[in-house]
């Protein structure tokens, strides 16, 4: 029987079942411990970045090559003739898809990947569509949590920082809500978790709480997921006054569980003190590396009936 992701479009986290997420995470773990350079042999994959995103692109292109595939594409849509000639995305996708076995795309507009999936003859993999979804980031986050906690079920997850605009945080909350996790949200008032996410959690009867400080959430946390509070969103005085509350230092971590791990989608600015890097809690660089394995797993599952 074909694996459930074979020839599927990968557009948005709410499209995934719990079983599909588990399959990706388990496949990523397998590929990390037993590299399989033949899984994409003979496959050509489009890597089309209509807006620049260096880490996501490099991680996809590494994943493709580690599995023996090759890629075509561009790293910035502005450099292509597509934009200059005013072709619709629908037409560009139809043409490029006819050259390749899968279509990885990043685009500055929300909904671009869903639209592309309606015009593409091959699976579309969303590498970020505006402020909407970035499913492979969520899958690498899930894999990192699974790797460091040996499970996804029943964990206490604390999200810190900008929970309003961070699509990473929204998607990961949606994904983890399939695994009976409990959530703590620590954010400035103006940057709290959007109501539509907390409503979804309420509908599923999932426990979530707001805390004023990171310290309050630390003793129970299995995962602290840090994000950056952007200066641009506040005036300077307000920012100085408020930002310190959302910085993770060695002091903040007193009383943490032994199994606590800290994640961050990176880039970090100053929200995690550099001293924390050397503690056993720091897991963000492993997480970044896991981006390659999660993307390998996804591409391998989408392009191989069986692994």
């Amino acid at each position, binding site marked *: 029987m074909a694996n459930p992701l074979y020839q599927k479009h990968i557009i948005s986290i709410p499209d995934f079942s719990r079983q599909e997420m588990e399959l990706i995470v388990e496949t990523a773990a397998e590929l990390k411990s037993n590299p399989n350079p033949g899984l994409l042999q003979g496959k050509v994959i489009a890597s089309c970045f209509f807006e620049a995103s260096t880490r996501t692109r490099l991680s996809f292109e590494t994943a493709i090559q580690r599995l023996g595939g090759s890629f075509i594409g561009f790293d910035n849509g502005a450099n292509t003739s597509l934009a200059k000639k005013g072709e619709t*995305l629908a037409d560009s996708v139809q043409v490029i898809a006819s050259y390749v076995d899968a279509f990885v795309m990043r685009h500055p*507009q*929300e*909904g671009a990947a*869903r*639209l592309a999936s309606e015009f593409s003859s091959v699976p579309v993999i969303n590498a970020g*569509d505006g*402020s*909407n979804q970035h499913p492979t980031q969520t899958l690498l986050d899930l894999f990192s949590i699974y790797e460091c906690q040996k499970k996804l079920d029943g964990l206490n997850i604390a999200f810190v920082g900008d929970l309003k605009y961070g699509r990473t945080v929204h998607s990961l909350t949606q994904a983890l809500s399939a695994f009976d996790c409990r959530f703590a949200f620590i954010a400035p008032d103006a940057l709290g978790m959007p109501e*539509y996410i907390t409503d979804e959690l309420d509908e599923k009867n999932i426990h979530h709480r707001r805390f004023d400080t990171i310290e309050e959430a630390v003793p129970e946390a299995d995962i602290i997921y840090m994000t950056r509070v952007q200066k641009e969103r506040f005036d300077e005085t307000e920012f100085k006054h408020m930002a310190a509350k959302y910085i993770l230092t060695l002091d903040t971590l007193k009383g943490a569980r032994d199994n606590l791990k800290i994640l961050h989608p990176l880039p970090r600015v100053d929200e995690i003190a550099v001293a924390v890097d050397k503690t056993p809690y720091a897991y963000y660089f492993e997480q970044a590396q896991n981006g390659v394995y999660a993307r390998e797993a996804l591409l391998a599952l989408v392009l191989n009936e069986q692994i």
Partner: protein
Amino acid sequence: MANKLQVEAIKTGTVIDHIPAGQGMKILKRMELIKLKEKITVGFNLPSKNLGMKDLIKVANLLFTEEEANQLALFAPGATINVIENYIIKDKFEMSLPDVVQAAFDCPNSNCISHSEPVQSYFTVKQKNNDIQLKCKYCEKSFSKSIVEDL
């Protein structure tokens, strides 16, 4: 006779009745009924037993399909639509909330890809407490019905 409405019966066409008062104008505009160049009779703030006041629209020679009728449900929940042929009611639709609203209005998110591409807008409809939420298939953003009404 004094209490009777002086609105002429139509031979063939559609009568949209029991429209919540104030919504009639919006429906005329939304459904682009005036552009049809057919005879349209409207009544605003008419007395209604159940609603207190209601709006009513009659469009000659236009026969609503159930799908078209359902597009209206979003803006006039509770309205009834009578499709009339030769003075006889051929179809009667009680408005029910549609699962999907297609091509009725543009996505309110200006950065949604649907604006610049050869596709129709597409929203799934969900009742949430006292509000109706519309979620765009493309950008996945949800909007309250009231935002869409003002477009």
